[in-house]
């Protein structure tokens, strides 16, 4: 089988992937983007090449600003392989993917992983009920389909996306019964030391404050320091009530849809399957692939940029995409490191300014332990229906880490391959053993990182 070969293969078509493609192409490299979506934009600029909503004020200007990037990339010379799901990469950088139910391969001289982030799994009692969805999913519905969730709607959680989606849905006319802010007491104080640095990125701080003001003006009831969040059903098997506490006061609110959010974490499935080095990021409370300033991983031919390398937001992702691409250009075109420094210097400065707010946001929105180490009855592994109690029992049986726990309990063996339970299982084990989370480790991830059919695999035997 003749496998097409590219100078640079990029996985993901969000701001990081698109900017990298555009930069690399500018310098004459042969570039391909593998995108599991059908159109450019990743998650943040989803469907932006053909926007869905007539009323552009709903999503707000930040979304539509991405148009410039999309136009630029559409004029760039590169191969766009859309609706292609990457399931593995071999040691000689042959990328295995499936497209329209056929197994295919392309070869890369350099690989750039720009697969972005996923919502942090936020388990709590009742989170598996139909009608409980992530805030990110509501954004996807707005962007790709112009759809809003059925009301009465309750939005619960902690983090910038919570405010954004609440404002967007409110502008769209959705009946929002309540916003439940689960940010625990003391977070603002904890975040204060990071505020001076955050001021370097004043625009984002101001944006945040204006969102808060917009929501306050909307008269949507906001409950702060919410604890003990639970979703329940009384009749049919879907959520119809959410209960919570504030101190000793208990409240319950009937709802048709419950949107939840506890921040986002890097999607490390592919970087783990490639056995690249990772390290624990205490402030973001998740694993990061270990990268240098160009996004180069422990494998010199593999780069990671954007949120897949650590949460930094869309603008920062675009800057990082450019920097990784410049490094690849330097390597493949044999440019001097002096030249690379010059080409990169403006973007490096912009990236530093953009990233300055990150530690403040990370400290402010650190997930509460209610979600990190959920109560016994909470399902931790949604796929295999393993509860937090069962995980704790495994630790009592002697399981020291997530792999033995997986072997004994089946947690992590379902189709999501541990994406929704890995962090929680590790947190629970660490908590039971009274050791830091990074001592506990993570699942050993192997290819295929996405389920593929037997026939798609057989396609690769010629």
């Amino acid at each position, binding site marked *: 089988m003749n496998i097409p070969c590219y100078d640079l293969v990029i996985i993901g078509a969000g701001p990081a992937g698109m900017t990298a493609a555009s930069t690399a192409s500018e310098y004459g490299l042969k570039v391909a983007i593998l995108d599991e979506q*059908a159109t450019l934009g990743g998650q943040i600029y989803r469907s932006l090449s053909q926007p869905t909503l007539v009323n552009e004020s709903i999503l707000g200007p930040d979304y539509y600003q991405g148009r410039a990037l999309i136009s630029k990339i559409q004029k760039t010379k590169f191969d766009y392989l859309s609706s292609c799901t990457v399931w593995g990469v071999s040691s000689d950088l042959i990328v295995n993917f499936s497209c329209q139910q056929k197994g295919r391969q392309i070869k890369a001289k350099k690989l750039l992983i720009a697969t972005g982030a996923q919502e942090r799994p936020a388990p709590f009692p009742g989170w598996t009920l*139909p009608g409980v969805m992530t805030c990110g999913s509501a954004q996807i519905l707005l962007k790709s389909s112009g759809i809003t*969730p059925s009301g009465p709607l309750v939005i619960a959680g902690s983090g910038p996306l919570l405010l954004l989606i609440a404002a967007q849905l409110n502008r769209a006319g959705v009946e929002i019964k309540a916003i439940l802010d689960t940010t625990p007491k003391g977070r603002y104080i904890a975040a204060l030391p990071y505020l001076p640095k955050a001021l370097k990125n004043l625009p984002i701080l101001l944006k945040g404050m204006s969102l808060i003001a917009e929501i306050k003006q909307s008269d949507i009831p906001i409950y702060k320091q919410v604890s003990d969040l639970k979703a329940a059903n009384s009749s049919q098997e879907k959520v119809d009530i959410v209960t919570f506490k504030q101190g000793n006061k208990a409240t319950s609110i009937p709802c048709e849809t419950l949107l939840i959010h506890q921040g986002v974490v890097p999607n490390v499935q592919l970087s783990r399957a490639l056995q690249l080095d990772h390290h624990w990021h205490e402030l973001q409370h998740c694993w990061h692939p270990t990268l240098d300033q160009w996004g180069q991983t422990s494998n010199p031919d593999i780069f990671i940029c954007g949120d897949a390398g650590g949460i930094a937001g869309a603008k920062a992702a675009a800057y990082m995409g450019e920097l990784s691409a410049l490094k690849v250009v330097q390597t493949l075109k044999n440019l001097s490191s002096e030249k690379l420094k010059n080409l990169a210097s403006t973007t490096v400065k912009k990236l530093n300014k953009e990233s300055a707010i990150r530690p403040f946001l990370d400290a402010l929105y650190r997930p509460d332990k209610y979600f990190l180490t959920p109560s016994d009855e909470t399902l931790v592994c949604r796929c295999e229906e393993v509860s937090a109690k069962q995980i704790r029992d495994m630790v009592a049986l002697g399981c020291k880490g997530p792999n033995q726990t997986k072997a004994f309990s089946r947690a992590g063996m379902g189709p999501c391959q541990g994406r929704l339970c890995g962090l929680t299982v590790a947190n629970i084990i660490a908590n039971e053993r009274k050791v830091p989370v990074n001592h506990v480790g993570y699942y050993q991830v192997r290819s295929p990182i996405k389920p593929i059919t037997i026939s798609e695999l057989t396609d690769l035997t010629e």
Partner: protein
Amino acid sequence: MQNALPFNRLETNTSEWVTVFIEDQAVKVRQGDSVAAAVLIAGLTPTRTTPMSSSGRAPYCLMGVCYECLLTIDGKENTQACMTLVHEGMKVNKQHQARQLGQSETFKDEQV
């Protein structure tokens, strides 16, 4: 079939509209919708039952990470609805627990 309040469609830019069949009922959806969006707008719930305990589940993340939105699409079971786009005449059915293997491939009566 509709047993939850359907999600609501706002005013959208011009596009093709297609008819899909969700649990045999015709539903009009927009070109570019994922099948997950289609079942939400149809008000179908739950969209699957789990293999282990037959618990009801429905789409959760809509971005291909959680695998809760597994449905039977055009006869193919356990297909991620959020990663599949609608097309005219598509047949969508709930995923009932574990996948059934196609009955067409038993060779019991075939003479060798």
